[in-house]
């Protein structure tokens, strides 16, 4: 089992999509929302994902393919 902390950023119409619900339904991943802020045209959710490493990878690839941005929870770690 693996655990990852990620941040999803939704823009425009994606705000209305049940992405997190489908991530939990279509993949063997347990999602646990810790912090979020959703507005009319943009939203972000910080959440923890539990599951097999490969399944989390597959799930995150699917999330990215929907247009939702996936980032590490603490922001970029590459600095100048």
């Amino acid at each position: 089992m693996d655990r990852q902390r990620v941040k999803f950023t939704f823009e425009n119409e994606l705000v209305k999509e049940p992405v997190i619900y489908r991530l939990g339904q279509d993949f063997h991943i347990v999602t646990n929302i810790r912090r979020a802020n959703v507005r009319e045209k943009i939203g972000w959710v910080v959440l923890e994902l539990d599951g097999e490493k490969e399944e989390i990878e597959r799930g995150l690839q699917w999330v990215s393919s929907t247009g939702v941005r996936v980032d590490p929870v603490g922001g970029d770690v590459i600095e100048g």
Partner: protein
Amino acid sequence: MPYVSGLKCRECRREYPAEALNVCDFCFGPLEVEYDYNTISEVISADRISQGPLSIWRYQDLLPASGENPVDIMAGFTPLLKAPNLGKRLGLNNLYIKNDSVNPSFSFKDRVVSVAATKAVEFGFETLACASTGNLACSVAAHAARAGIKSVVFIPSDLERGKVIGAAIYGPTMVAVDGTYDEVNRLCSEVGDNYPWAFVNINMRAYYAEGSKTLGYEVAEQLGWRLPEHVVVPSASGAMFTKIWKGFNEMACLGLLDGVDAMSFGADQNTVHHPAVITRMHMAQAEGCSPIVTAWKEGQTHVRPVRPNSIAKSLAIGNPADGIYALRVIDRSTGSGNIVPESDVVEGIQLLAETEGIFTETAGGVVISALRQLAWSGAIKPDELTVAYITGNGLKTQEAVEGVVNPLMVRPTLSSFEEALSERTAIGR
């Protein structure tokens, strides 16, 4: 002994012991260092600071690591220069340059890494690590060498040769990652979670970021224990921007500024604002990566991540961890956000070099071009005391200004020289 009382989540306010922690376990918010300011106020004074070493460790009472045996390559206490020539070009009579490009590894990163490395050694880590596009890698490798511990630096595989050599010379394990920016970022974040290393900007981040406060302390001290009316600061993650502001307010609250009464820090140490701190904080970002300034201009409270595409690579953080806190500092200080067109970055570098003899990297070009925007728009008045922060050395980004090389080509005779000189004079160069 550092006067640290613990760590506190900036979002949910949960408290943690002062350990190598990354984010709040509950809400995943960032952790900040909390200080015992009551005790600090009993020991600190302008005199005590003045008698300290000529490095950031003169402010050890306000840093989260012990100053008794710091990992110190003499970061900080860099020159604050009056800039009359640049000031004349911009219409500013009271302009100063904080030249942090002359730190030991040639960028302000030595301040933050010195604190992180000292804390890492205190915690017993044997490896110092980072993910970097240049300046941070150089500083981490240099400080690890000084501390006698190992270092691992992750860099994008297409990084410029000068920066690669600038870090490699100190003997780190260098990992060149082949992938997109986001992929490299994800990998490094995962490595940080899985290896028992002190990643300066991951599990050491709370301590590391505090090193930037010294950029605020030094300017105040060098100005005679007073604050400027304006500062222009480059921003990537937004952390340095917020910490300079914090540094100014700490000095005011502790009564270290000339003619300013001390004040309680209140319940939230990280958002305290002493009314005597009237410095307006102006942020500078390049057009190719300006997520914080864009959010400020749009009146957003959320910073929308972007994919960086800028020649100012040391500012190219598309998903800035401290973006929302930096936005609040702009507003609280009645400052501004300034986007510099990519084409103006090199102009800014040249303008500073030709007027004040300081060769800065692309981030400095962003600052000088933003300063010019602020001066010419009237946002900074001619007599207002202004400090522009120059945080990195131009020798690291020489490829950005290769076009300036245009020598007179002559044969080894006086006549050839005079002919070439007259031709050059005729075309005004």
